[in-house]
């Protein structure tokens, strides 16, 4: 087939394209992914029985704000990386802000505490399982984000995979926070940080394989 014939074929009867297609795909995919993460949390871990009391503490909201602000930036990155030729702008640098904020808070908390209390602030009661649990709860969102991206056109596959991992793990951390009893900034910095980093690494590793089109 000659190129002109191919062009005629592609142009014939071309249907209008919904300009909201990408946005709708993100909404559907993330909705399903977060729902999956919630169901996984409820079936494997259950809600924190003290959730109502804990929700009155300001630090509970700080604990949510940390992954939530990262998730907002990750969403922006995932959208940009799903569209060919869209520059990332300041979004990658913006990721440092929430991390810096929680790091400063963690240092302040540790500095205020008496030396014998410091290990407990860092390790809490659940440090052994926290990071892997966050990664596990993120899996449905990770699959959903890959589905979203497969329907769009990422051209920088390793970056796109990492962004998919970050979006999944930050939303997964938000969901896991409904179970997790920990609330101290040093714990959140280290173990939530590790939990959110695992899917990023997996995404960067698998992106070039899984996202090819």
């Amino acid at each position, binding site marked *: 087939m000659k190129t002109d014939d191919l062009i005629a074929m592609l*142009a014939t009867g071309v249907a209008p394209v919904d300009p909201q297609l990408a946005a709708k795909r993100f909404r559907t995919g993330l909705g399903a992914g977060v729902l999956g993460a919630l169901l996984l949390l409820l079936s494997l871990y259950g809600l924190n029985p003290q959730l109502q009391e804990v929700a009155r503490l300001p630090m509970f909201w700080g604990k949510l704000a940390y992954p939530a602000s990262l998730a907002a930036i990750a969403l922006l990155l995932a959208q940009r990386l799903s*569209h060919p030729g869209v520059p990332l702008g300041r979004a990658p640098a913006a990721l440092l802000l929430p991390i810096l904020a929680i790091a400063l808070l963690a240092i302040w908390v540790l500095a205020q505490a008496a030396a014998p209390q410091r290990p407990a602030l860092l390790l809490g009661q659940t440090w052994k399982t926290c990071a892997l649990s966050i990664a596990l709860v993120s899996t449905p969102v990770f699959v959903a984000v890959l589905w979203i991206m497969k329907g769009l056109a990422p051209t920088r596959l390793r970056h796109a995979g990492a962004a998919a991992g970050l979006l999944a793990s930050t939303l997964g951390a938000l969901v896991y926070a409904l179970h997790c009893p920990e609330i101290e900034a040093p714990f959140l910095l280290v173990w939530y940080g590790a939990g959110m980093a695992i899917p990023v690494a997996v995404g960067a590793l698998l992106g070039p394989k899984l996202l090819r089109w």
Partner: protein
Amino acid sequence: MKANEERLRAQLLLGLAGDAEAYHLFLKALSAHLRAFLRRRLGGLPDEIEDLVQDTLLAVHSQRHTYRPEQPLTAWVQAIARYKLIDLFRSRAGREALHDPLDEELDVFAHCDTDAADARRDVGKLLQQLPDHQRLPIVHTKLEGLSVAEAARATGMSESAVKVGVHRGLKALAALMKVSA
């Protein structure tokens, strides 16, 4: 060059709204720019140029929903063309064939080449390999110019099955092109 891009962008936007004539003009002009763009990068592989032009056109078409109207058309087209080019080099493992470094920001719309050589790979033959539920919707609506409703009557498929068939069929076609590249 700027005027070129503006005209192409206007045609694409009309095409995205369903104007087949404007979309045809867009693809036609784009193919000439792509040919010139790819020729300068595929000096070592002259036989591949027309295949890659077709490959990229098909990719532009099936990913046209990822163009953001506020974005320069050059950036979008270039990212897709580069992606296809890198894909080709990866499958060839022949990076030495690269004429220009890929990260150099050269304008896709700077040059034009309407002198189409024959593609080595026949898209028409690849089309024959698709299953009926994808091939027939493409043949009826895209080659014979029937409407979706007419194609549905001719094939006994539902209208939405015809639309899905066209969409999936073109994707499958792009995948076949990659395999036979």
